[in-house]
């Protein structure tokens, strides 16, 4: 039943993760979806979606209007039968010229399955046409046969924004916060950002909701603080291309790891730690000690809607829990360190994609886990729902709340 699945240590990227059961219903989101959502939310950024009528039609579920509030253009390029054979280079080039004339400031090309399948060379096309255009152009290729679920639509789109950045002089007081919107209301503000502001550091938030100008000027920062797995590839690229170092907080669950990361931020930003987080750290250590005592030996399964399953599984394993099966939406390169931790603890659970939750719940039940986490339709297994509530949160508070929720559900 689970024999067809790979073990965690055998997975090197998102494409290596097998489906738990074969009949997909309803399945995972396409990466085009999240790319369409992101481009609509970056002020000043236009987009050109290249694909089939299906892709063009469905993209309008997420980016419904052809023109944005600030003059952005979100136009579509539908490939015809001739272009499937001979390529769509000329047509896309003409489309970019038209968008340029219509006033687009910068354009992100979103390539979907068919342009990716026929090997359309978007990089070459942009290289060729860019000198003609006033608008800056970048691209992201998101064929779903290569990018199985939605996360690549997010991290690849964010990463592509680096192509629109200007090289600039470093401002030692500037910190970019990657993965949080400047107008975020739904996700509580992480304690660390308010604290950084209290140190008179200037924060720039880079995520959907930011402006094209924010992205363009981002290389002036002295440090990137990363709050989301979707933003880490952008941080890696900015470090490589612009020399901006980064510190990731999103994959730190253990109080000791969080403490170390906060110390690293203080050193990079040039201030002395002043014990601001000591009480939060103490609370996290206390609940972790309680969890270690009460959850030790309990087995768990991850279902959908857990934003960082591998780092979280590594942390739960560290406090003594036993991973049985992990649904992984995307395997990030940074996950390999967490995979090693799980392996070092003596575990190597099978990993899967759940694409038919109603049927897959029955299979999971046969594993007889002590607790499940993530999304389930209806199950009599003990499970922690709404794990996506923690997306975008970081620090000691998140660890405390996750452990509290698990302890509540296990009745401990």
């Amino acid at each position, binding site marked *: 039943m689970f024999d067809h699945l790979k073990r965690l240590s055998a997975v090197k990227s998102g494409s290596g993760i097998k489906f738990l059961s074969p009949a997909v219903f*309803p399945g995972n989101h396409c990466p085009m979806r999240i790319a369409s959502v992101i481009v609509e939310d970056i002020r000043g950024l236009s987009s050109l979606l290249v694909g*089939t009528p*299906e892709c063009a039609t469905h993209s309008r579920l997420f980016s419904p209007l052809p023109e944005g509030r600030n003059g952005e253009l979100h136009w579509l390029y539908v490939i015809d039968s001739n272009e499937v054979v001979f390529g769509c280079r000329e047509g896309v080039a003409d489309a970019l010229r038209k968008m340029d004339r219509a006033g687009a400031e910068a354009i992100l090309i979103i390539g979907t*399955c068919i342009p990716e399948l026929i090997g359309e060379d978007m990089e070459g096309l942009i290289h060729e046409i860019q000198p003609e255009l006033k608008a800056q152009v970048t691209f992201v290729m998101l064929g*779903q046969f290569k990018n199985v679920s939605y996360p690549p639509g997010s991290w690849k789109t964010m990463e592509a924004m680096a192509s629109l950045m200007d090289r600039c002089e470093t401002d030692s007081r500037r910190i970019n916060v990657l993965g949080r919107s400047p107008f975020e209301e739904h996700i509580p503000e992480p304690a660390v950002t308010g604290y950084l502001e209290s140190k008179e550091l200037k924060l720039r938030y880079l995520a959907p909701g930011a402006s094209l100008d924010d992205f363009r000027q981002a290389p002036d920062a002295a440090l990137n603080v990363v709050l989301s797995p979707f933003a880490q590839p952008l941080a890696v690229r900015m470090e490589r291309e612009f020399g901006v170092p980064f510190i990731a907080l999103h994959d730190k669950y253990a109080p000791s790891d969080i403490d170390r990361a906060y110390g690293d931020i203080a050193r990079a930003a040039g201030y002395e730690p002043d014990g601001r987080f000591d009480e939060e750290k103490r609370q996290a250590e206390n609940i972790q000690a309680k969890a270690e005592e009460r959850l030790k030996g309990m087995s768990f399964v991850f279902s959908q809607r857990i934003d960082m399953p591998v780092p979280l599984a590594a942390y739960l394993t560290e406090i003594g829990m036993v991973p049985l099966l992990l649904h992984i939406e995307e395997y990030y390169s940074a996950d390999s360190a967490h995979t090693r931790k799980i392996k070092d603890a003596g575990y190597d659970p099978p990993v899967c994609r759940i694409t038919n939750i109603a049927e897959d719940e029955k299979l999971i039940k046969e594993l007889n886990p002590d607790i499940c986490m993530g999304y389930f339709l209806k199950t009599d297994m003990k499970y922690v729902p709404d794990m996506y509530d923690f997306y975008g949160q970081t620090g000691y508070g998140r660890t405390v709340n996750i452990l509290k929720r698990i302890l509540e559900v296990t009745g401990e």
Partner: protein
Amino acid sequence: MGLLRFKPIPSGRMGTLWTLSTIKNAALVEFGCMGHMLYSGVTLKHGGVNDLCRLYSTHIDETDIALGGTERLEHTVANIIKNDSPKVIFFLPSAVPEVIGTDLRALCDELQQEHPEVMMIPFGHGGFNVNQHDGVKNALLTLVKNIPAEVGKTPEPTFNIIGSCADLFRFQADAAETIRAVEGAFGIKPLCVLTSGTCIEDIERMGGAHVNLVIRREGEAAAKYLQRKYGTPYILHRPYGIDGTAEWLEEIERVLGSAFDRAFVEKERGIARSMLEPVMPRFRHMSRSHMEEVTLHLGAHADIVEGILSFGCREMGFNKGVCWCDSPDMGTDELPYYSEEKWIPAVEGLKDGLFMSSGEILEWAGRSLSMQISYPDRSWHLHPFEPPFMGFRGAVNLVNLWINCNIERW
């Protein structure tokens, strides 16, 4: 199709899916990337189609593409048969396999031998030059070629409706009103409403009907096939308006050879006319003195535009304005096809009159969505019992929309 600002004409693959999506006791499998089916499912739910035909995909990855792997399809079919026990499995063409040349028909033949207890039907028309309307046409034809059983005519007269599909706005309400009118006029029952509100067993019985009522031109090929195979006559007519609906019933009367209930039709006419009466003086005044205000501008499926226009002009004394259809294959001199390149300036130029079109166009133009007569849009339509556009009750609904639009503009 090239560069577009608005949604393109949907593909044949989408037309096929929308046609099949409402058939119960069947499963549909798309051998392709799963995003298409996920969002098609969302779009269908927006249109009030939920959990009728079971919609599955296999997903497909780069290894499948490089090595021509089709195991996913085999495993998916086995899984569906085990869990759902459908009577029929439909195989939907998908963009990536179309490009790499996957022979869906041959795969289906192999699977049919493996699972003889389930009928398997592969659908074609997946190419990149095939549009929604061809997809619907082919899907309807393929259904009637494969599923109807060898049956004799029913002892009492019965009818089928062909062409009520989920790609048409308010398809359930229009089908319901059509059935109500025929049942009321002739006292006869439908065997199958292809494809809204139908199931495999209904399609199997289609050959027993005495007449096929085709309500969109894409259904005519299916009706012709049924005529050849079962000798069933058909009528291609999408009835709009009070007189228009009565004339359609007269047509059915001629084909069926049995008289309809005059009292029912007169009663329906009377009810509709009395409902319209309060607003008719205003419309008559407009027709005499402000013709521009009762000029109908329509953009939608050709049969819908022709039907509504006929009601407006013949029965209400309105004027024909800017009218177009949404399929290049259906355009004529009287009713041309407009791509967005043509309808954008046409809509921008509209100052007066009654404009009905898709939700997408109305929203962009800043017009009331109550004047929507076609997809696409981005609203939800969970309620299958909304007022229809067709039939006697549809006539009242249309006039109600027009008077409110007229009041808003004045």
